[in-house]
C-alpha cells in the first residue's frame, strides 16, 4: 500500500518524461532540433500529467471514509482542503517543474527559455491543482475513471496553457516574458482565493453519500 501510494505519486512525472521522449521519434528528422516546438510540448505534457493526478486528490478520501469524517468534524472545511491542495501541488507540480529542464533539453529548447519555463510550470501547476480540484470534487462520487472530470476541467486549463507557452516563447524570442508570467500569477491568486471555498461548498451542498 505504501508502495502503491509512492508509485501513484511519481506516475505523472514518469508519464510526462515518457511522452516528451516519444515526441522527437514521431516527428520528421530535424523537426525537434531547433526548439520551436519545445514550449508547447512541455506544457501539453504538464497539463495531461496534472489531469491524470487530479482524481487522487479526493477519491481515496471518499472511498475510505476520511471525507465523511472531515465533513462532520466541527473544524472549518476550507483549511484541510487548502492543505490537501498544497500537498497535491508539492507532490505533482513541483517535481514536474524540477524535471522539466531534462525534457526541454531533449527537445533542444534554447538556453534563454529554461528559467522562464521552470517559473511558469511552478506557478501554472499550482493553478492546475487548485482549479482542477473544483472539478475533482464535483465528480468524486462518480468513482474513478469518470470521463466527466477531463471534460469539465479542460476549459479551466486553457488560459494556463496559452500564457504558459507564451512565457517561454517570449523568452526565446527576446521579449519581456514577465508579462505572461504575471498574468499566470493573477490566475493563481484568483484560484487560491476562490477554489478552496468552492470545493468546501460543493462538498457541503451536493449529495455525496
Amino acid at each position: 500500500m505504501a508502495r502503491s501510494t509512492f508509485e501513484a505519486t511519481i506516475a505523472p512525472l514518469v508519464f510526462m518524461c515518457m511522452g516528451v521522449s516519444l515526441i522527437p521519434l514521431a516527428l520528421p528528422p530535424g523537426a525537434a532540433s531547433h526548439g520551436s516546438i519545445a514550449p508547447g510540448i512541455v506544457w501539453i505534457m504538464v497539463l495531461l500529467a496534472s489531469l491524470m493526478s487530479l482524481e487522487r486528490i479526493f477519491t481515496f478520501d471518499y472511498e475510505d471514509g476520511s471525507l465523511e469524517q472531515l465533513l462532520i468534524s466541527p473544524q472549518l472545511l476550507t483549511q484541510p482542503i487548502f492543505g490537501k491542495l498544497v500537498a497535491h501541488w508539492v507532490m505533482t507540480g513541483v517535481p514536474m517543474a524540477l524535471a522539466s529542464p531534462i525534457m526541454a533539453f531533449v527537445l533542444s529548447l534554447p538556453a534563454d527559455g529554461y528559467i522562464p519555463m521552470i517559473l511558469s510550470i511552478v506557478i501554472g501547476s499550482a493553478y492546475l491543482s487548485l482549479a482542477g480540484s473544483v472539478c475533482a470534487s464535483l465528480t468524486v462520487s462518480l468513482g474513478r475513471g469518470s470521463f466527466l472530470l477531463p471534460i469539465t476541467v479542460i476549459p479551466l486549463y486553457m488560459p494556463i496553457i496559452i500564457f504558459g507557452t507564451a512565457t517561454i516563447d517570449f523568452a526565446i524570442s527576446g521579449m519581456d516574458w514577465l508579462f505572461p508570467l504575471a498574468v499566470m500569477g493573477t490566475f493563481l491568486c484568483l484560484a487560491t482565493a476562490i477554489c478552496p471555498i468552492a470545493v468546501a461548498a460543493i462538498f457541503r451542498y451536493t449529495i455525496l453519500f
Partner: protein
Amino acid sequence: MSILGLTKSNDKVLQAENLAFERNGCTIFSGVNFYVSEGELLLLQGRNGCGKSTLLRILTSLIKPQQGFVSTYGENIYADRHKYLSNIIFIGHQLALKLALSPLDNLYWTASSTRGRQHIFEAMDEMGLSSVSGLPCYRLSAGQLKRVALTRLILSDAKLWLLDEPFASLDLSGVSIIEKLIERHLKQNGSVLMTSHQDLRLSNIRKIDMSVWCH
C-alpha cells in the same frame, strides 16, 4: 415547540421527528420517530437494506432527509451545526484510516486537537493494540483496523456516539471491550445510538425495530 418561540429545554440528546427519505424516487423509510435521552443506549435493528446506515448519516447531518427534522435538546441540528458536530462522534463502515500510516499516526490526526500522544498510547493499550501501534495499517487485520477506528471513542469528548455496526469483524474480546466502553460512557451520562444484529449484554437498552418504517 419553536413555532411560537416557546423553546422548551429538554433532555433529549437526539430526537427524530417524522423523518422520510427517498433515493431515486423510491421511498426507503418514512414516518420515523424516536428519541435518545441522556445516559441511554438506543439499539436500531432491522433487516439488511432497510436504511439503518442512511438514517445514521441523516443524524450526523451528512444527508438531508426529504421530510421531517432532527433536533438536539429541542433545537434543530442545522440551527447550530458546529455545536452539534462537536458533540457527536460517528463511526461507520468506512473506517477513515490511511493504510500507509500507523495506527498511532491515524489517531493522532483525528485526535490531535484535544489530546496528547501519551493519551493515545493509553487508549490503544485499553483496546489491546499496544503491540501494533507502530506498524503500518496495511499490515493489520480487519478486526484490528476496526479496533483502531473504535479507539477514537476513548479519545473523543463527544456526548453522543453514533455507531454503525461497531461489532462487525470484532472478536469476542473486542466485543467485550466495546461493551465496557459503552457502559462507562452511559454511566457518565453519555448517550449511544447504534445499529447491530447482535444482542448486547448491557442494561438500560431500548430497542427499536426499523422494519415498521420501512417500505
